[in-house]
């Protein structure tokens, strides 16, 4: 099942060691609810509340293409020399839609919800949920900024978070 916690997220990405380590840490910590990314490796999540979160991408040193999520091999030139980077938080809406009906599986957030494509100044578009706005306010060309927000709670009461963009 999806989203039953850190260990499942880790299995998805094959990062078993990270998953086991996280689980170990969790068992040692108190009973506070955790914030868990929807997938390991997607985000740089700051230690302190004052720092901003960031999307973790990588850039091919051969052809310059940038990938989010980060890839092992460049999809464009198959180069294997990729450097890690984080993306800025600002972008522009390229397209958007508001879903009025609950999807068949997986998604457990509120309905209606809006998502779409946001173009980033680094030179790529990413898919994202939109937040903090009325669906009628969304339009192509609107400036938006990235936030990390709750997607849903998993079976253990942990808060599963993901990137979303909001008008700014």
């Amino acid at each position, binding site marked *: 099942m*999806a*989203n039953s916690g850190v260990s499942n997220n880790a299995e*998805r990405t094959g990062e078993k060691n990270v998953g086991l380590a996280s689980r170990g840490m969790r068992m040692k910590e108190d009973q506070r609810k955790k914030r868990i990314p*929807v*997938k390991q490796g*997607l985000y740089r999540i700051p230690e302190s509340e004052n720092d901003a979160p960031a999307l973790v991408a990588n850039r091919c040193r051969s052809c*310059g*293409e*940038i990938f989010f999520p980060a890839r092992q091999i460049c*999809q*464009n030139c198959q180069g294997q020399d990729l450097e890690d980077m984080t993306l800025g938080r600002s972008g522009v809406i*390229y*397209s*958007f*839609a*508001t*879903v*009025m*009906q*609950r*999807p*068949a*599986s*997986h*998604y*457990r*957030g509120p309905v209606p*919800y809006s*998502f*779409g*494509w946001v*173009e980033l100044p680094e*030179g*790529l*578009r*990413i*898919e994202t*949920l939109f937040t903090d706005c009325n*669906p009628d306010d969304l339009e*192509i060309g609107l400036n938006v900024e990235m936030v990390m927000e709750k*997607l*849903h709670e998993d079976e253990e009461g942990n808060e*599963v978070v*993901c990137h979303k963009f909001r008008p700014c």
Partner: protein
Amino acid sequence: MREVAVAGVGMSKFGRYRDKEYQDLGFEAVVNALGDSGFEWKEIQAVFCSNAYSGMGVGHNIAARIGKSGIPIVNVENACSGGASAFRLCYQSVAMGLYDVCLAIGVEKIPGGLLDDTSWPEHERDMGFNVQPANYALELQRHMYEYGSTIEHVALVTVKNRKNGVLNPYAGFRKEVTVEEVLDSRMIATPLRLLMCCANGDGAAAAVLCNLKELKSKRRLVMVGASVLVSETYGNVKGAGSIRYKNPDRTEIAAEQAYETSGCGPKDMDLVEVYDTMASAELINGEKLGLCAKGEYGPLLERGTFDLGGSLPVNTSGGLMSRRHPLSATGLAQIAEVVWQLRGECGVRQIKGAKVGMCHCLGAGGNCAITILKR
């Protein structure tokens, strides 16, 4: 390469069948296709069976309803292009001389409501991105922004196709709808409404392909002009991904290959079945196929160009909008329509003197299959 004929086609009536198993639907389509082709079951040398939602051994289970003759049976999954992909596997097997007579089957039995598109990564499914109407809505929003197409244009696609579907006995929906009814129907994913989204469904379609020299049927000859399958290439992404490159889209790439292979261009087509999983998909892909210039499809719809009586009829079968969409069966249902049209067997929806027709479908992955048939 040998010349390949479509010896026969067959379908089950698409719909919702709680009382039937996929084996029943597949059996009906295969028996119809065999009867149409003039071949006996024992003459079939290989089977390619497309299905996405019923698990393992689907083609074997359908074949076993007729007989067990030891031939190779391959189960094919290629999402909504599955039926056309099974057709292509038959085509290439016969063209290369491996077999003389092959059977393509497409069959599906799926739940209603929003399709559970399993082709997305888990975390993107968790975020609710794998909603088909919404993804077509994102593409439509861009098309409206860039080319000025309107939601009324999209509604006109539904109205046209549902009108054609009334004349197709295999269609699941055989009732006309008005522009007002389409625009008043429930919103699914802005700006796409219920009657702009095809309904899922249960059904099967089949085709028998053969080496021209083995043809038995005395029906009018239909040849395969091109059977093309492509996946996406890097840098043609209209949505998420690189924005540095402006490479052609999967439909544009497949169309170019199909036109070159067949020696026919968009102007030679007497009819075209365009993948109308959403009404907007016909509008946008009709342009990518070169049926008209970018931004022109909507205005031409208003003028009736793509109607049954127009200069280039599109979705004479009623399309997915009328037929319903049993994923893996759809590609072969499109092919069946063009075969019937080229043979002059379509009765009241017949396009007079049709000589060349084309089928287009898209599938998750993403892929695109284009088939051109000639007589």
